């Protein structure tokens, strides 16, 4: 998983470099400062989901499967909220502000970087949901804690990437 994270980091860093390189180079509007607003609430959702998944894994290691399932579901809800936030933002940008991936360089780089991250959140959510399905069906036991922990590492990674994306897109890029 560390290797996978290294590979993923390399992919993300290329997109981040492209975003930074093209910041302010769009020939036509809209520019980031005109249309982007800082998604504070959804960022808090995603970052706190790192905390909840950490508690969930701790409970599974202690053998408390029910408490695990509770915290795990909370993680999924927080992740889904974040995704809904992204969807809402994109909907606003596309239909109200008229910014698509074709509009200008900002659109191209913004949608690819944020989209790549959202794609990773989606993959994470699918994986988290399948684990919770196993938990609900009663197949999940204490001895699976290590595997679940590996998955939680992926989730932490997705959160850390969001911190980078957040800084790049919503602070530096504006």
């Amino acid at each position, binding site marked *: 998983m560390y290797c996978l994270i290294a590979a*993923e980091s390399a992919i993300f860093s*290329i997109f981040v470099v492209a975003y930074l390189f093209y910041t302010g180079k769009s020939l036509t509007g809209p520019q980031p400062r005109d249309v982007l607003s800082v998604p504070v609430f959804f960022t808090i959702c995603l970052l706190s989901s790192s905390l909840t998944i950490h508690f969930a894994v701790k409970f599974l290691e202690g053998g408390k499967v029910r408490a695990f399932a509770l915290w795990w579901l909370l993680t999924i809800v927080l992740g889904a909220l974040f995704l809904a936030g992204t969807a809402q933002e994109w909907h606003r940008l596309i239909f109200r502000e008229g910014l698509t991936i074709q509009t200008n*360089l900002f659109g*191209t780089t913004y949608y690819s970087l944020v989209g790549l991250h959202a794609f990773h959140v989606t993959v994470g959510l699918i994986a988290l949901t399948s684990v919770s399905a196993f938990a609900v069906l009663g197949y999940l036991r204490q001895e699976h804690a290590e595997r679940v922990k590996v998955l939680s590492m992926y989730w932490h990674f997705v959160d850390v990437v969001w911190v980078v994306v957040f800084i790049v897109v919503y602070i530096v890029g504006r």
Partner: protein
Amino acid sequence: MSAEPIVLRETSAVRPPLVEMLHEWVTTVDHKRLGILYIIFALMFLILGGVEATIMRIQLIRPLNDFVSPQVFNRMFTMHGTTMIFFVAMPLVFGFGNYLVPLMIGARDMAFPRLNAFSFWMTAFGGLFLYFSFIGGDGLYGAGNAPDVGWFAYAPLTSQTFSPGHSTDFWTVALLISGFGSIGTAINLVTTIVCMRCPGMTLGRMPLLAWMNLVMGGLVILAVSPLSAAQIMLMVDRYLGGHFFDTQAGGSAVLWMHFFWVFGHPEVYVLVIPAFAFASEIIPVFSRKAIFGYPVMVAATVGIGFISMSVWAHHMFAVGMSSNSNTFFVLSTMAIAVPTGIKIFNWLGTMWGGKILFKVPMLFCVAFLFQFLIAGLTGIMQGAAPFDWQLTASYFVVAHFHYVIVGGILFTIFAAFYYWFPKASGRMYSESLGRLHFWLFVIGFHLTFDFMHIPGVLGMPRRIYTYEPGRGWDAWNLIITIGAFFQAAGILVFLYNLLWSYFHGEIAGSDPWDAWTLEWTTTSPPPAYNFATVPEVKSRRPLWDLKHPEDPDWKYE
């Protein structure tokens, strides 16, 4: 652990029916079978890439030749480069890595056997997909078929305007798919080497091949991922109307060059570090001496791994970067020559005073030492920016990197084929056919690539489909093409040797070379579980310790 393999039961004499055997091979997750599949796949693509090279050389044999059209010539050099790098060289090093690493570190399989199978099939389908472009590349526009944008596919040549149809998309998607396969295998190799070593095998006792595969895996993880990211961007540009590399909307064509070479230069080391690994295993065995300077060798490998990440823009001196960046990349390029030079001296130090046996694997390794040195020297010449401005995109460059990839990498891969063929097949190869292959290939190689430097210096640009007579290039091109035929003949002898020896070779036994690493302790071919009992090692040469209990290595390490 025992020197003689433990035969647990006789293998059944009845061969299973063909369908069942095919099913076993397709569904296998055994690292040895997957390694062999990688290698067979790569050999098939080696033939395809070789045919493409031959077509180009026939076209260039004399001035104003019209053997193929300019369009076909463009497709040939694009497909030749892409095939040889992504679907020959990489599968070959992955195949050997897959086959040898678990055997050498005393493991029973790779860390993730199913990921291993998945990675292989990704690579295989990526390769088939690339070649499907000959049929499907016309697309709706009826334009082009195979990709013709060159193996590094510079923007804006790849934009919809300049390559309509689907040819470039076949290139992009094929590399994306096989790239994911490569990352999977790299993750697998690194995890296997870090986590699955047998008891007693500390990092300091690990065979150099395993060390170098570890570094190679790390490089693949950090180098192929940027390529995948860049391919995704290119697809966004071509399909979703993005502007990453679209200069008319403020995008940058130079950014693509940076992204490509951030992958492209470490890629050279992804290929050459396993080549070093083969040399580091073969040269000691045929010199009858332990490797000279093991710790320095490891340090040099890791050093090369790090430095190789910071030299990429020496492919771009002619683009017009600032003089500061030019200087930086000149210096880093010069710096990487140092650990590489250390390695060459270590191999020479291993041979010095040894009792050298010139069997076919050793012949290829000795040729490798000479040729890789020359390749490195022309590399330093071009690493100096002013010199590069003069010769960039000329046949001198083509000669240089073929010297690295054929003279360095392919020669050691041939050495590895002959060295480990007895292990994988259980039979010896034919020594006389092997020598014939060696001499044909050495003569062909030097005819082609030595003389290719000269038209480069005389100003012949790469990728031209023909040239005017009377520029002083004619005779050189004739010689180069003649060399290509020698090489083709060598390859045919090599393939015939593999096939013939597989059915008729002498039975090899478990340790035909009197070697020292763990793969020679088990039977040839090894059983599915590799080792009946998990070996325990005390030194870098565990098999030496077994054979010489009176004078074991671990007393001196």
